[in-house]
């Protein structure tokens, strides 16, 4: 059998070329949209691309907005690895946020123990809550999309009610918690920005999950179970407990993510709708091909673009909503599997024919 690795068109090289070209096309489309909607498209375009680099605070914005995306992206990627389409991280972000806020509003400990508890408790509870759809699926084959979507709305209702009944700030006019106790707030690590140790935690989490997945026995079992549960069971792995463990870790990450976000960026809990970070996490996970490092890169890229576009829209007449067109194009092009495939196949065919 004549089977050859063909260098230029090899998998990695091709993926890289593809992504670069996709980004270029998406940017070109963005430029066209800008040309249609504002007076000075070139300047706006440059602002969008370089904006986040012009000020430390802006770059800080990029980092701070990628943190929750990394956590929810990691959480979703783990879930997707089990082959399930579970969107429950959205709800975990909400209810975890409520729990975190409750703890953050109490007075105890010091500026180390307080945030530690305020992050770990929601994380644990998040992990446990994630077991509900996980168990229902594993044991009774209850559709995880239904259960997770329903649970999201239920967590929202219960969380709102809890805040209103037990944690409402009396000095605040909408449903919100009181100000977090000072000890609970995470310290800033880059002066002049709101970048806290959250970013370090996010990167650490990504690396940790990477090591877990690709270097440990547990990760090996998780990967095999995700790829083919029958095979994992046949090989002697306990598919059910692995499945539940993955759900727990995922919920745990969700809990950490929401807590870090709240304790870094917010001074009180005032979400009255689902934050949308869970859905964005699903996007990160899919674009990052469920690989922790991929999630990290994608989260940075999307945040950079988003912040760049916001800076641009602030200084020009372009409506903020235009950003969504840019993001949608980018997402669709980058994740297109067949994009440039024709070209690649032609090349492969040519090279292949040489060996005939």
């Amino acid at each position, binding site marked *: 059998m004549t089977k050859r690795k063909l260098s230029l068109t090899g998998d990695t090289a091709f993926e890289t070329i593809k992504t670069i070209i996709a980004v270029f096309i998406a940017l070109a489309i963005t430029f066209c949209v800008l040309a249609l909607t504002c007076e000075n498209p070139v300047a706006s375009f440059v602002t969008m691309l370089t904006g986040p680099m012009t000020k430390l605070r802006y770059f800080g914005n990029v980092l701070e907005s990628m943190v929750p995306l990394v956590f929810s992206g990691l959480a979703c990627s783990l879930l997707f690895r089990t082959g399930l389409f579970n969107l429950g991280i959205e709800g975990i972000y909400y209810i975890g946020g409520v729990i975190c806020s409750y703890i953050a509003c109490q007075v105890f400990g010091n500026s180390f123990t307080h945030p530690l508890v305020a992050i770990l408790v929601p994380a644990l509870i998040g992990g446990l809550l994630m077991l509900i759809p996980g168990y229902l699926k594993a044991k009774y084959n209850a559709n995880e999309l239904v259960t997770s979507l329903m649970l999201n709305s239920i967590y929202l209702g219960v969380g709102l009610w809890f805040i209103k009944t037990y944690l409402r700030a009396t000095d605040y006019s909408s449903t919100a918690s009181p100000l977090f106790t000072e000890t609970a707030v995470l310290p800033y690590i880059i002066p002049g920005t709101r970048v806290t140790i959250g970013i370090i935690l996010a990167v650490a989490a990504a690396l940790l999950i990477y090591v877990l997945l690709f270097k440990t026995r547990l990760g090996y079992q998780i990967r095999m179970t995700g790829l083919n549960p029958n095979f994992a069971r046949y090989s002697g792995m306990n598919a059910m407990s692995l499945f539940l463990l993955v759900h727990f870790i995922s919920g745990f990450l969700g809990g950490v993510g929401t807590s870090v976000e709240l304790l870094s960026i*917010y001074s009180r809990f005032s979400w009255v709708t689902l934050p949308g970070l869970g859905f964005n996490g699903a996007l990160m996970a899919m674009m990052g091909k469920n690989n922790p490092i991929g999630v990290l890169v994608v989260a940075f890229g999307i945040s950079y673009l988003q912040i760049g576009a916001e800076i641009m829209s*602030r200084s020009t007449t372009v409506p903020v909503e235009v950003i969504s067109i840019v993001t949608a194009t980018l997402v669709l092009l980058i994740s297109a599997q067949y994009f440039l495939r024709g070209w690649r196949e032609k090349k492969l065919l040519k090279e292949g024919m040489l060996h005939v």
Partner: protein
Amino acid sequence: TTAPATEEPPAEATAAAEQTEATEAPAAEKIYKVAVLVPFIGDQSYFDSVNAGRLAVEDYPNVETTLIEMGEDKSKWESYYLDACEGGYDLIVGGNNDAEEYFYAAAKQYPDQKFFNFDYVNHVELPNVFAVTYNTPELGYVAGTAASLITQSSMPKANAEKIVGIVVGMDFPAMNDFVSGFCQICYENGVQVLIGYPESFTDSAKAKEIALNMYAQGADVVWQVAGGAGLGVFEAAAEADKYAFGVDSDQTIALSGQPNLAATIVTSFYKDCGASVKYAVDMLIAGTYPTGAKTLGIKEGAVGLIQNQQYIDMVPQEIRDQIDAQVAKVAAGEVTVISALADDAAWQDIKAKATAPLN
């Protein structure tokens, strides 16, 4: 006497705050840059009203304004404020509930610029900040007056039952501040109040269903305090052939495209944020920018009801007179209106009383 909210002279609206005259400042060369920060416009409520105020001052030859929409993601708001401060504006208009902390933090950090909080909850005393708030309970009280008079009237769509309704976007104190005064006067007048919370400011279909239920249970007038979702109440009113009240600005104007819906609106109860924005800019130009906080109510004309032609045509003279009399009483300070924001216990009490079925 057609007088939509935004056209009211600012001097009258804020008569209490220092004496004012000169709108055309002597230092004609100076261009005043004003930034207005709101989460978004198009809420059919006070962000739109603030924007109306901005548009009004935009016509001044020496004023340049920028509207900055920050979006609904609160985590991004801080940077919008800091950017505005760094953008060299003379006056930064912003604040209101959720953004207040960023507003005051920015004001503290940039003491050379002036700041105006168009609707404060917790004012922080700073030399460069002026803040106003509106007496919402008084507005609710006036609306309740009108509602309870109409339901007992012989107006064509009014029925025998003494029931009125109020659809409130979400169940939280700032929203309930509209309801407390409403309940108070209705209870005094022996009218039952139905309160519905769709728990959304966008789901107009849900608001419609709730309002339809209210009408089906005997309400003949429903007040909507639910932003975009509240438009569903007018749809319900049109379908049930009953009355509705608008909120924040003259909603018959907003509904210009849908005359059958506009026709259900007896009147709208406004909160004139726009006028206060204009007032702040005028003061800035005059070089007499105030500091401190002010509550604006019926007396100042910052809240009240729209008395347009439709209102006059729809509501009989004697009812209008009764309403005017009640408004005068409130303006004169003869009534103590319960505020849900300030006194939770009293609010819970009046809510229980006003919603109890009549026998």
